[in-house]
């Protein structure tokens, strides 16, 4: 937590100046909406998806979510994690799956919502700075795509951002709730 303090000061200060009641350390909750497109294909499998925060040097600040076949027997679902090849190279191969709060089952087509609290989990220790939200999807007998959405942490008031995929991902929406 202590690393957050310098970056948080301005936010807390400005919040105080505006007369808004500010929570002690909390900056904001981060909401990520990932649209998984409905695809009209002969053989459809739900995509594997990795969501992570990247630093400007492309290193991984935090893996936020990995959706894969967690329930397959003998961990067979892990065999295809390397198809999320950018996440696999940057972070996946360094960790033992499953990871609590990160691993999850694949999700169906439609808007999928993820919420991360700034006072616990991966965002709690995130130093202030510029980041890129990375969303990578890989589908069995299908394609692969990465969508990038830049962001600042901690967020400015009302900050939101969007990205859009063309094949394996739809609209990625990022917003923050104070």
């Amino acid at each position, binding site marked *: 937590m202590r690393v957050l303090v310098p970056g948080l000061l301005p936010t807390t200060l400005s919040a105080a100046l505006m007369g808004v009641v500010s929570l002690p350390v909390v900056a904001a909750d981060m909401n990520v909406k990932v649209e998984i497109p409905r695809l009209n294909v002969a053989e459809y499998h739900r995509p594997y998806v990795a969501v992570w925060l990247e630093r400007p040097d492309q290193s991984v600040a935090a893996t936020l979510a990995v959706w894969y076949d967690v329930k397959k027997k*003998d961990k067979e679902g892990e065999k*295809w*994690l390397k198809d999320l090849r950018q996440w*696999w190279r940057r972070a996946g191969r360094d960790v033992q799956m499953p990871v609590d709060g990160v691993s999850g089952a694949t999700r169906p087509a439609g808007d999928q919502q993820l919420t991360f609290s700034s006072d616990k989990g991966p965002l709690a220790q995130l130093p202030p700075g510029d980041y890129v939200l990375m969303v990578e999807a890989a589908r069995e007998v299908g394609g692969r795509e990465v969508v990038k959405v830049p962001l600042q942490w901690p967020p400015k008031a009302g900050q939101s951002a969007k990205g859009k995929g063309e094949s394996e991902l739809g609209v990625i929406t990022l917003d923050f709730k104070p």
Partner: protein
Amino acid sequence: MKLSFKLAAVAMTLAIALPLSANAHRTWLLPSSTVLSGNDPWVSVDAAVSNDLFFFESFALKLDGLQVIAPDGSFAKAENAYTGKLRTSFDVHLTQSGTYKVAVISMGLFGSYKDAAGQTKRWRGTPETLAKEVPADAKDLQVTQMQGRIETFVTAGKPSKKVLETTGSGLELQAITHPTDLIAGETASFRLLLDGKPAANLKVTVVPGGTRYRDKLNELTPTTDADGKFSVTWPSAGMYWMEATVKDDKPNLKPATDRRANYTATLEVLAP
């Protein structure tokens, strides 16, 4: 060409066993994947001698000197080995996490001489078989030592470095960039060592696979610097064949008077 079918046949036989003698042919190992995840990964490896990369169209590669080295440095098994007309194939069960090296190492003598009738003969073998197979009255006996190393690398989980250690014998690749962490558009660096010392000013040939479906070879030909180092910026994703050969007069097998040391690797470059 009156050189005839017979000589060509001899040359081809040599190519199969001793990749170093092949000018026209390329020798290679081709793994089914080089980057794997999951807790029970396997790879299948094809091994062949061919012109086009990576198509088995000429000869199966003999696996006499096959070594599969596990991440901890121990030898792993090649399973389900099969030798066909055009390729050899085997499986490796990646029971450890980390990087495996698959290598075919060859060492031998190659000779030419004139027999009692004055006919030029070619011979291949070892110091032990030389005395038996080459007549004592052979004239103009010229013996070359052949040292060959054909390699590829596969990684289960996180890449490791133990198998990248070199032996100090023959021509070898010292990886500066990890050989299973190659990405299109990025630059990878390597060092070639001859008997453990930098192989300076040596031409390296790097050819992307899929040559059958294009007119140009698109080869890259970096040259090693004084420190044996060279680098390659991968133009695209795919399997690449890398080769270098040194000829010198430093054989360590008698009665060879010179040596050809060859290094060949198959490397996979992934899309970013």
